[in-house]
């Protein structure tokens, strides 16, 4: 990529400095104000971008001290100011960056070489709210916000340990977005951290406005429909995965964290699974698995059996199917595509509209369009039931991204079902399986523990066994300390008559 950005040029400092001044002068929110200290008669200038600076800090903490205390040289200012981030520097790169992040530049008349820069950043952050994408009935109700500082606070509070390392990187040639990589040293496999760090460092893009950018850029296969990094808005989930030995990536300005590496089965697990009794949690996971396969296969199977394999239909069902299809003027595939597209339209309309209108759309679409199209004889009511159930089932996915994946992979399977019947469905599933087998997340197999089969990891995949059975951290992460606790140390519970 051609370097088009002026701030990258290291030479001709004066020239560049001038340009900085010139450019800033053009902005109406740039201020440069001069004051005179009444005690030492020293004039000083404060330069800052008005919209980025918290005036409260400036007027209540900084200015009174600067005007009342004695100082002659710029170095003395550091002792006067009651702020944590005060720096004396002459590095123009640093000055520029800080100025643009909401710091105030202090210069003393007569000393053009050294500058004092102190932070008076105004932070506009919304409150910590309920998780919306990964809502759970039980458990903590905190979700990440758009500020990196706040998000780190949410995680650090849960893991008060010195081994929790926070590395910071800056990506985005224009946006200079701050990205933090979190991991627990001593548990995490450093290879994963190095991979993440290297891939993030190599990002060349002008603006990184959300973690989704990073997700797409550092995925092993960015063409794949399957998310190879998990994103979560729950600090509790992120903290829990960090202790497993995973790496978390937080992006300033994004209310989601990325978790890597991940597997396909993890995409179908919700954090609430760990809050419920293990039997209940396993049951819910199985239900989800069923829902997903139903959602992907129901309509294609309908089309395939109706068009090709009438002999597979049980006799008692034949009457119902034939009678409901009898008056429909379209072949099964058109009928199915028509309804599938309707559902997709409703979803998209519901997602784009404000919440209240969105609900109305759902009701209008679901009830009115569905019933009307059956009454008009455009679709059969059996198919309407199947499609509605399939759509409902696809909403059971706890991870939003995998829900989208399922939404899309139905269509090729549907078309192949029309072309070749059951054979077509299986050809499609073979392609899907081949793709999933090749997929990796940070180089770790995506289908683990199903393939390669890892007996231990199965305990927390399709099922969720009790915590006493989960004495090891997931094997595919290759954690430095593989044991959570020693199972031999488990104390036996006393029986009631002992």
């Amino acid at each position, binding site marked *: 990529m051609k370097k088009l950005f002026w701030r990258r040029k290291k030479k001709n400092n004066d020239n560049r400095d001038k340009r900085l001044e010139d450019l800033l002068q053009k902005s109406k929110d740039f201020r440069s104000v001069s004051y005179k200290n009444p005690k030492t008669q020293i004039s000083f200038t404060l330069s800052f971008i008005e919209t980025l600076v918290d005036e409260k800090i400036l007027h209540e903490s900084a200015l009174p001290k600067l005007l009342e205390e004695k100082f002659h040289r710029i170095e003395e200012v550091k002792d006067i100011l009651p702020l944590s981030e005060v720096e004396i520097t002459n590095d123009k790169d640093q000055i520029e960056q800080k100025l643009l992040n909401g710091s105030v530049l202090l210069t003393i008349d007569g000393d053009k070489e050294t500058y004092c820069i102190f932070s008076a950043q105004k932070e506009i952050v919304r409150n910590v709210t309920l998780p919306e994408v990964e809502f759970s009935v039980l458990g903590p109700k905190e979700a990440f916000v758009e500020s990196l500082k706040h998000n780190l606070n949410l995680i650090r509070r849960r893991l008060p340990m010195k081994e929790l390392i926070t590395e910071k990187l800056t990506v985005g040639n224009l946006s200079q977005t701050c990205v933090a990589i979190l991991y627990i040293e001593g548990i995490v496999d450093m290879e994963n951290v190095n991979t993440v760090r290297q891939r993030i460092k190599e990002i060349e893009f002008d603006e990184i406005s959300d973690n989704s950018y990073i997700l797409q850029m550092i995925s092993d296969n960015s063409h794949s429909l399957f998310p190879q990094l998990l994103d979560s808005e729950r600090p509790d989930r992120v903290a829990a995965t960090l202790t497993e030995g995973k790496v978390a990536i937080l992006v300033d300005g994004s209310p989601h964290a990325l978790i890597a590496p991940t597997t396909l089965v993890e995409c179908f697990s919700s954090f609430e699974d760990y809050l419920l009794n293990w039997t209940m949690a396993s049951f819910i996971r199985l239900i989800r698995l069923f829902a997903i396969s139903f959602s992907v296969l129901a309509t294609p199977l309908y089309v395939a*059996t*109706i*068009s*090709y394999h*009438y*002999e597979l*239909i049980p*006799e008692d069902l*034949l*009457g119902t*199917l*034939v*009678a*409901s*299809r*009898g*008056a*429909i003027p379209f*072949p*099964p595939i058109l009928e199915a595509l028509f309804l599938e597209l309707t559902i997709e339209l409703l979803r998209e309309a519901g997602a784009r509209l404000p919440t209240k209108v969105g609900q109305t759309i759902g009701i209008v679409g679901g009830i009115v369009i569905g019933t009307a199209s059956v009454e008009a004889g455009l679709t059969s009511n059996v198919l309407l039931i199947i499609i509605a159930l399939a759509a409902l089932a696809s909403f059971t996915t706890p991870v939003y991204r995998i829900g989208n994946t399922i939404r899309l992979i139905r269509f090729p399977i549907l078309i*192949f079902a*029309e*072309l*070749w*019947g059951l054979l*077509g469905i299986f*050809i499609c599933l073979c392609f899907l399986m081949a793709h999933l087998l090749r997929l990796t997340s940070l180089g770790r197999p995506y289908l683990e523990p199903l393939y390669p089969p890892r007996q231990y990891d199965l305990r927390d995949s399709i099922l969720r066994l009790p915590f006493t059975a989960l004495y090891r951290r997931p094997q595919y992460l290759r954690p430095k300390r593989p044991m959570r606790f020693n199972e031999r140390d488990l104390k036996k519970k006393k029986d009631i008559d002992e």
Partner: protein
Amino acid sequence: MVRLPKILTLFMFSAALSGCVEKSILDDIVLVNGLGFDYCDGVNIQATVVYPDYLPDQPPKDKTFTGRARMKKTVLQDISRQTTDPVVTGSINTVVFGRELAEKQGILDLVDSFHRDPRVGSTIFLGVIDGTAKEFLKGKYGIRSTGEHVAKIIEHNIKHEDLPRTNMQRFFSDYYQTGKTPFMPLLRKTEAGNVELTGISFFKYGKIADSIPAEKMFFFKLLSDKYSEGLHSVKTKEGEASVRDIRSSHNFSLLQQNPLKIRVKIKVNGIIDEFNGEELNPSTVKSVEKEFEKIIYEECMELISRFQEKEIDPIGFGQFAKTQIRNFDMENWLSTLYKDLSVDIKPKVTITETGVIE
């Protein structure tokens, strides 16, 4: 992206090749579920198909078509000329033959074509009709379509009554098994317009050789099938009891060669459903057991001598002998050896329950 053109070509090929797959959309085909064959003039056969015309919110209306030709497939072609949609065979579940056809012409060639058709399941039911198949299939029985109705009758009689297990698979298994005679249930349309299971017909070289009435089916099932569930009344001095058989098993053992002697042990566990005598005490139960054993012995012996007379072997003594005797002379089995066979029947009846009244 080198792979994209490849994938596109693949897709184009698959789209083009899909034209080679034969499509049969459910509502654009004639889903035949019952098929009947009748004797017509010795050369041609007459076939009748019955298919349900499914209508919304009401029971299916049966429609029948009849055609004549030399072979089954050509008959279907003849019938296709009369129907609006193509006739498909995939949902057939009952095939019946008129008695005249089964006696005069044989049915093997006709069944064979079903055996070859991959769309037709091997668990379809075959049956012989007392009368003509055409008349039988034209009847309207119950809310189900005729083919299904007949299949249900046969199925539940196998499961809960005394019809031995039978379907096309078993028919052919018996047919190709040397030393065993295949059989089919015998059905008829009653005057009141219902279907009735009237007995079992035995086939020799594809033609009916003998048939037994429904009352004898219980004993035939005891001899030929593992599990028999049927009701039988037993008269004793103390009163008449009806015994429901809940479990039965039979066991063959070879006692002697030249002439052959085979012992058949029949174990029956039953419960007394009904008793019209004075009191049902252990000694009466004993006498019911004894009496029932006597009935089983007599009836089974009668059945076996009847089969020997007609030179058919539906119980499979020949097959049993073949497994026991090295170099068994299968060629002369039915003609000579079978006639000299003596069978010793040892029934053992146990009444396990007499009901809740004490």
